């Protein structure tokens, strides 16, 4: 132990002792908390909080901030509790050569519980990242609120949520769900831009099974209530599912590579060997002759993008709408596409929510958007109407209208009714619309149109079935094609499927410097934000 030396004005320690004291404090903190939990982690193959940071940052090299931060609670034995780093390690370092801020909750340190100063550390990390224009990666693995601290814990949640909102749209925020995250705390990963969940160890929910049982009498396991199926499949809150800690972190790095570090930068362009004007002959045969037969839109995506590489988000949720990132000529783009293989590729409430938030993320971070359209429309019927398809579907319209990034629409087949603008067309803001010869761009399908316009004629006809068929055919021949739209200039050109990649790349070249802000164009006047139907 360091020895105090006396002098008339007080006491002092030698430098040697002071330096040793620092080293001892650092060692004690970096050893982390409960050895039993650390050992259990080692056995099950899970990484601990510091190993996760080492795995995230290039060469395992990170700079920690706030290592010595300590709570100030004295009640319920907290004055004697040892909580290294307050249960969360905040750090910055480089990820694939780019600066990133991260915080990693430490389950071995008082179960990574969230108290006043734990919250302060996380809030500060986000504020720090926002001010410096750096992405944030948060690693969640926490026993929840530290109830010992009462009101102070509660207040810290508010600081965190508010800071996340202030940073939203300024820097990309990625949440990694590596352990439990239950209770009000779960709003924290939810409020970030993307959430990646570890299949067997990540749990999230507004309340865990014990709470659910006592409060509302429902009996359900933690796995079922809060596991991967709950969020990647049912609730649509887990954007990417990964197998274990390393896989989660790898996927976070992969995702981050599409994003700029902040909203003032363009997304990083990389070199590719894939020629920008490559003809994709395999696309010419992909759309079936019969309009009621499905085809796999994911094939179209992987054929047109660079090197067949597509990073899908929310791939297990509302699968009739595909969202994800890819590159064209090395430029990151967001892709929004209908999947006719699933639920006719229509837009329903979940698809609209999924699509609109994706579009808005891309717009916030200057990532151009490309749509591939084969959509019969928004879902109809009492079930959809009563659940509010109109207000949910409106999110897509708001998202497209508000978007200022390059917007390119490829109409592959059906583009009917509300889905025409719901999936991006000129009237809602597209810069370019190209249609395949297989496109059917009109207000409704021929059968619907005929049954409305010619209802009386059909009813009163001597041979109603024949009249109906004749009128459907007539309507179809006139309107169910890409040329009426092209004649008016609503579609810029009708292109062969194999030219799609070439046209998208040319459009992106031209739109490289598209820049729309209040003050730069007459239709963007100052306002706080649009009143999107949330």
């Amino acid at each position: 132990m360091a020895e105090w030396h006396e002098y008339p004005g007080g006491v002092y320690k030698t430098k040697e002792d002071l330096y040793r004291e620092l080293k001892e404090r650092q060692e004690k903190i970096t050893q982390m908390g409960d050895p039993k939990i650390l050992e259990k982690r080692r056995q099950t193959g899970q990484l601990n909080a510091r190993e996760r940071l080492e795995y995230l940052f290039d060469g395992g090299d990170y700079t920690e901030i706030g290592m010595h931060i300590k709570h100030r609670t004295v009640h319920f034995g907290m004055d004697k509790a040892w909580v290294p780093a307050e249960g969360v390690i905040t750090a910055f370092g480089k990820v694939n050569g780019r600066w990133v801020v991260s915080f990693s909750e430490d389950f071995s340190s008082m179960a990574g519980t969230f108290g006043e100063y734990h919250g302060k550390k996380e809030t500060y990390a986000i504020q720090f990242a926002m001010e410096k224009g750096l992405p944030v990666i948060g690693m969640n693995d926490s026993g929840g609120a530290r109830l010992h601290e009462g009101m102070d814990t509660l207040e810290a949640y508010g600081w965190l949520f508010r800071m996340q909102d202030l940073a939203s749209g300024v820097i990309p925020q990625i949440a990694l769900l590596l352990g439990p995250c239950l209770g009000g705390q779960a709003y924290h990963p939810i409020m970030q831009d993307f959430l990646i969940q570890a299949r067997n160890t990540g749990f999230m929910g507004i309340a865990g099974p014990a709470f659910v049982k006592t409060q509302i009498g429902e009996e359900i396991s933690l796995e079922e209530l809060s596991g991967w199926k709950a969020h990647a499949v049912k609730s649509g809150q887990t954007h990417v599912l990964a197998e274990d800690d390393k896989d989660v972190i790898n996927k976070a790095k992969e995702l981050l590579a599409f994003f700029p570090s902040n909203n003032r930068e363009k997304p990083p362009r990389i070199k590719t060997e894939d020629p920008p004007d490559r003809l994709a002959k395999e696309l010419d045969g992909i759309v079936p002759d019969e309009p009621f037969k499905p085809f796999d839109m994911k094939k179209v995506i992987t054929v047109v993008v660079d090197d067949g590489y597509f990073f899908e988000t929310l791939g297990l949720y509302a699968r009739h709408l595909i969202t994800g990132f890819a590159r064209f000529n090395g430029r990151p783009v967001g892709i929004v596409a209908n999947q006719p293989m699933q639920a006719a590729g229509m837009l329903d409430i979940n698809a609209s929510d999924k699509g609109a938030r994706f579009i808005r993320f891309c717009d916030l971070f200057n990532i151009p958007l490309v749509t591939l359209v084969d959509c019969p429309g928004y879902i109809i019927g009492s079930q959809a109407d009563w659940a509010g398809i109109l207000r949910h579907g409106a999110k897509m319209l708001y998202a497209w209208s508000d978007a200022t990034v390059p917007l390119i629409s490829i109409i592959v087949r059906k583009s009917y009714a509300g889905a025409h603008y719901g999936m991006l067309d000129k009237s809602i803001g597209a810069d370019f619309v190209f249609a395949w010869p297989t496109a059917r761009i009109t207000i409704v399908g021929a059968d619907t149109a005929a049954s409305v316009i010619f209802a009386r004629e059909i009813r009163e006809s001597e041979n109603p079935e024949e009249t109906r068929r004749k009128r459907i055919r007539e309507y179809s021949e006139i309107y169910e094609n890409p040329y009426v739209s092209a004649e008016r200039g609503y579609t810029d050109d009708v292109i062969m499927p194999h030219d799609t990649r070439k046209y998208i790349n040319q459009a992106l070249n031209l739109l490289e410097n598209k820049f729309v802000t209040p003050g730069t164009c007459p239709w963007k006047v100052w306002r706080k934000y649009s009143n999107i139907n949330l």
Partner: protein
Amino acid sequence: MESLEEVFQYQLVIRRQTVAQETIEVPLVGKVLKVNVNPGDRVKEGDEICIIESMKMENSILTPVSGAVKEVKVTSGQVVKAGETIAVIEY
């Protein structure tokens, strides 16, 4: 907010069910055109369970798991709503 005990539990509980069930639900309102399976049939992942006609499309409903068909809840010609059970597969 959670109790610590509960959170610790998650690491201890490893559920191993010998038989699991997958419920295949109607993805969108429409009319059942054709049902391809009967209770007791074996199905492979990706097999077509039925076709639902809706929104101008013939929508193939595929099983996401291989197993035995336990129940079939729809018949051809029936109008179904999103979320209704089509079939239950045991695997």
